[in-house]
């Protein structure tokens, strides 16, 4: 069905829903690469006006990617809860935006709506929201998850301590993790992206992280971000796997490019649950996503990259994950060209994830071939804290020496604590005090005696130290 808007006697026409969505998307290089973006700001605004007048119900009548060909579309249809949708079913996309912004709409209303919304509806409304709207609405929606720490409570900010090493050297990983711990990071997870892909390396990495965590009695989780099929084998070998990780995207074909499908994720979820390492009801999965993943696998079917990203969240929410983050600037300038595009995409992904019920975090990051720098990251981090992001990723000195990109520094978490007043998860905050890393007011102290002694006593470091 075609969609039309008239601006000053010029009629703009959009052949179908996915063309309307693509042309209504704020400018970004990935949609231009795909050849689906608006030709200019006026056509974009015409599409946004037509989208604003579209009834939300239209998304139930017209699928962007047919269910017949795609298991993600089938999952989206199966997840939709008409009773929950009733609260907003009479609205257009524009009226839905206004409803979201009303002060009487708060956590209870937004939480009740979670499975009434489809990813496409959430993506649509985000396209007609400015940054302030995205922040204001996301800040009203808390998604709290638990394992050994409680993540996503209002007014707090958790961190993933990401101790990557170019060759997965055990000592190198430990040193990087300890650097982060001394800066007070790691309450969401201490999680390594492995450079290697064997089961034995995966097992070695989770064993070393588990030893670090248990010897220092840190109330957090650990994770090796290897492929889910590797995790399944490591679990079968009874390795200490806290969380199963997988990268996911918004179509079956794109996930095929990652070598994963829903059945494999279900198998992994069952397997990790069987290890019984967490209290009952804990969240056990960790997903990463990012705009452009589907397009880079030629698996976007003419759908804009931001909508494809939101579709990936349908997969994530099927597994009640502990953590989900978009790796927003990681994929490169062909998808998000500069700091402005990265900042908007980070806030869109956070907003869409939260509305769909995800414990959303963001890897605030960029690559060296993008037109972005650490100042753009300062802006995005500060805006995300205003929006109530669950967690961000931090590495030593903002430089990931394995993945070759820049994320946030452990220092940036201290900025959020000192200047923005965002303490970590309560269990971790207590640990920081007990171990002597923070004083009574929560201020970070340098090299506390007890922790330094405990670290020096670690078997792992004894091997080559002193």
């Amino acid at each position, binding site marked *: 069905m075609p969609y039309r808007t008239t601006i000053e006697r010029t009629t703009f026409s959009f052949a179908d829903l996915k063309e309307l969505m693509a042309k209504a998307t704020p400018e970004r*290089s990935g949609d231009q690469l795909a050849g689906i973006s608006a030709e200019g700001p006026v056509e974009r605004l015409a599409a946004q006006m037509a989208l604003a007048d579209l009834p939300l119900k239209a998304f139930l009548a017209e699928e962007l990617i047919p269910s017949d060909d795609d298991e993600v579309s089938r999952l989206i249809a199966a997840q939709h809860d008409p009773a929950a949708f009733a609260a907003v079913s009479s609205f257009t996309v524009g009226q839905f935006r206004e409803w979201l912004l009303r002060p009487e709409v708060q956590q209870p209303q937004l939480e009740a709506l979670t499975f009434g919304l489809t990813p496409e509806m959430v993506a649509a409304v985000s396209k007609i929201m400015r940054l302030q709207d995205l922040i204001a609405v996301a800040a009203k929606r808390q998604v709290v998850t638990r394992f050994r720490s409680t993540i996503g409570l209002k007014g707090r900010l958790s961190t993933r301590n990401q101790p*990557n090493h*170019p060759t997965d050297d055990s000592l190198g990983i430990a040193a990087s993790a300890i650097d982060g711990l001394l800066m007070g990071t790691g309450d969401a997870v201490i999680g390594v992206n492995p450079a290697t892909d064997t089961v034995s390396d995966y097992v070695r990495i989770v064993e070393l992280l588990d030893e670090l965590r248990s010897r220092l009695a840190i109330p957090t989780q650990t994770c090796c971000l290897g492929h889910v099929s590797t995790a399944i084998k490591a679990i079968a070998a009874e390795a200490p796997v806290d969380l199963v990780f997988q990268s996911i995207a918004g179509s079956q074909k794109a996930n095929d490019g990652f070598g994963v499908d829903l059945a494999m994720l279900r198998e992994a979820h069952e397997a990790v649950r069987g290890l019984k390492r967490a209290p009952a009801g804990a969240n056990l999965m960790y997903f990463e996503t990012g705009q452009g993943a589907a397009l880079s696998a030629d698996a976007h079917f003419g759908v804009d990259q931001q909508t494809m990203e939101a579709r990936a969240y349908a997969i994530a929410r099927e597994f009640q994950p502990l953590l989900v983050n978009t790796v927003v600037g990681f994929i490169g300038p062909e998808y998000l060209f500069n700091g402005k595009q990265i900042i908007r995409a980070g806030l869109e992904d956070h907003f869409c994830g939260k509305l769909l019920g995800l414990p959303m975090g963001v890897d605030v990051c960029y*690559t060296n071939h993008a037109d972005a720098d650490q100042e753009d990251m300062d802006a995005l981090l500060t805006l995300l804290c205003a929006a109530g992001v669950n967690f961000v990723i931090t590495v030593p000195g903002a*430089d990931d020496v394995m993945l070759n990109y820049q994320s946030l520094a452990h220092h940036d978490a201290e900025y959020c604590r000192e200047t923005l007043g965002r303490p970590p998860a309560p269990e971790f905050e207590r640990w920081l005090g007990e171990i002597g890393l923070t004083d009574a007011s929560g201020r970070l102290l340098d090299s506390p005696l007890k922790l330094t002694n405990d670290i020096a006593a670690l078997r792992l*470091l004894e091997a080559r130290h002193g």
Partner: protein
Amino acid sequence: MAEDSLTRREPPAIDLRRMTEARVQLGRFGAGLPTRAAQAFLLDHARAREAVWSVVDWDRLVERLADLPVGTVAVESAAHDRSTFVRRPDLGRKLSDRSSHCLAGMPRGSDVAIVVGDGLSASAIDLNAAPLIRAVIGRLQLHRLAVAPIVLASQARVALGDAVGEALGARISIVMIGERPGLSAADSLGVYITYGPKTGTPDSRRNCISNIRRGGLSIEAAAESVVALVLDMIRTETSGVALLTRR
């Protein structure tokens, strides 16, 4: 003072800097970096941005490979210049018309096609490609595998190796490519190996060895891994995630 005696009793601080090249123990003032560390970061970022925009010394590479029995052939992708290459990965995965014609006229049916692509770091190729190629070819010859002329590809993405491997009718493609530069490593080489390369092969069908450089994975260790993967692919007639499940 009490505080001084406390400090004196502390064990020597653990020196994390000896254990990793990551930017550990930078020190801090509040949440801020010391000025020197902050400016060192800015300098490295400026250098990495330059690395993206420099050009491989292809003539020098040809010279360094001249004594190998396989020969070389130069191709380019459909991305005509650096600026197009950065914005248009689709063009970086396709051969230019000229290069397609050129490869179409070459003998087909080798076991292995080696493709060297600039990717996002010219210095990775300048420093690491020649020794890695020599180490890999030496080992492939021990196993009596036939190697096609080495394809030197400019403005190339990983998947350009599919088009090349297909054109040469090779059973396996080995793509050696400049990884996107990081702050501390702007010269890292990645290797992507694919069984039965064809245009449109998904990334899950590849096996990857990354971070090959001085201070990272050594040339010798990388060559061992590359050839081990090649032999496994020939044995199992598959690659990528499917190979990992069968190893």
